[in-house]
């Protein structure tokens, strides 16, 4: 493998935001979807993106991973601008980013093990180690028994969890979750949110998370992972997790960017209506 031109491991918290959008705009067929969006996500932060359907949330994650080009503005990840990068440099960068797609996007012609192992195999990891790490990742999402199944044999929630396992297998420095609980029942949603909380509190990975379910967002903000009990629990004394922040979009514009407390105390009429 060629020496990676870049090492976010050496990226220290003081060096600036992990993800930064500067006046980013993107549109399709003459219709602009995101208008001059700016925000940044600090190291270790969990940024929850909220907004009505079709307002461009998925686009933000794709822009952040360099899968799409903005029409205007600049996207910086790990302090580097994606604009001037060649596709090869972007592959180096993506090696440090895990992404969970809205519809899971598992490779449907290979089984769960091969899906989860995909990245390690591409990097040429030894077979033995790959298998161990796949089991480890599947244990994390509590799906060890599904290792030989094909994606079409799994339920939607299981697919989502396999997709999370695939995204975290190489311990990325940034995770992008696109609606990990979309279309799932409340119990499965809670399981998945628990995984996100676990990933946040155990690995302290910076992440961006899109959700349609406000209660998921507030579960994230009010819970922490207790590794002794092996599950998440409410943070005592009504405190909230201060690494969790919110970004609310409406019609392609940012209407809120701040902490949980600021969001719940906001007087903006759109936000008030959105939150109730």
């Amino acid at each position, binding site marked *: 493998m060629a020496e990676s031109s870049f090492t976010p491991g050496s990226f220290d918290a003081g060096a600036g935001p992990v993800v930064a959008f500067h006046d980013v705009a993107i549109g399709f067929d003459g219709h602009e979807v995101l208008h001059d969006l700016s925000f940044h996500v600090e190291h270790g932060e969990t940024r929850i993106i909220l907004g009505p359907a079709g307002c461009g949330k998925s686009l933000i994650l*794709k822009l952040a*991973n360099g*899968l799409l080009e903005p029409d205007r503005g600049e996207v910086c990840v790990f302090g580097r601008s994606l604009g001037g990068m060649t*596709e090869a440099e972007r*592959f180096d960068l*993506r*090696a440090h*980013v895990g*992404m969970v*797609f*809205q*519809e899971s*996007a*598992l*490779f*449907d012609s290979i089984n769960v093990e091969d899906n989860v192992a*995909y*990245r390690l195999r*591409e*990097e040429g990891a030894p077979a033995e180690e790959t298998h161990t790490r796949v089991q480890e990742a599947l244990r994390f999402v509590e799906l060890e028994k599904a290792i030989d199944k094909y994606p079409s044999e799994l339920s939607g929630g299981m697919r989502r969890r396999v997709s999370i396992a*695939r995204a975290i297998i190489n311990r990325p420095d940034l995770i992008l979750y696109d609606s990990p609980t979309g279309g799932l029942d409340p119990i499965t949603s809670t399981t998945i949110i628990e995984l996100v909380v676990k990933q946040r509190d155990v690995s302290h990975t910076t992440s961006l998370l899109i959700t349609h379910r406000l209660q998921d967002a507030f579960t994230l903000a009010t819970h922490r992972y207790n590794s002794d009990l092996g599950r998440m629990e409410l943070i005592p004394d009504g405190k909230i997790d201060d690494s969790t922040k919110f970004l609310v979009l409406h019609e392609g514009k940012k209407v809120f960017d701040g902490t949980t407390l600021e969001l719940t105390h906001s007087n903006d009429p759109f936000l008030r209506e959105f939150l109730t």
Partner: protein
Amino acid sequence: MFTFSPEDFAKRTVGSVQEFALLCGRAVGNLFSGRRYWADIFTQMDSIGVGSLPIVILTGFFTGCVLALQAAVSLKEFGAVGMTGKLVALSMVKELGPVLTGLMVAGRNSSGMASELGSMKVTEQIDAMRALGTDPIRKLVTPRILATVVMLFFLTIISDACGTAGGALVSVTLLKLNASTFFHTAYMALTYGDVVGGLVKPLFSGFIVATVGCYFGMTAKGGTQGVGRATTQAVVYAMIFIILVDFLVTQLMIGIFGK
């Protein structure tokens, strides 16, 4: 609802041609540098080459049979039934073998590639692949091009051989011709230029089958209906290009070998 604007149409056409050229360029460039996915190349060779064998053998064989029948009828008028072998061999090797094999493989594999890559595209698997650090052109398109070009070359040779055998069978059993005369005239008729011309064509057809199939797959949009559309378009365009390029290559060969 649909208003036709020539300007829009021209813009879209130029855009598509540019995209297609870019895809071809990058896919071919990948052959010469960086990682090669041998496992994918062999899987594709198996599915394209071995998988197409039955239809290529059958079409080749029956085309040879028909050619012999038709040729004998016409040649009888001139008292030259003995030339049947020559006619069958020349037609098969120069034209029908390469073109029919190309068309059969286009029907089978361009559509297969377009629907496979198209489904991957509309279910975001292509994006997922990029997100996981793999260049989809290197992993999906390049192996298909290499596999199709190599396999179509050998399939064409098989088709030529089956066609000649079919012609011989009909000549001997139905037309009561002498087998050795058939093969002798057939063998004598073929010149170096004919064989080279006939074997250059599948290289082009193979490239067309794979690139057109992959292009329509990779640019599919609009759900399952979009994949269906991509599949149909891939077959139609691949077939048209094969016949067009066949014409151009034939002309080039006439220019080079004088016949």
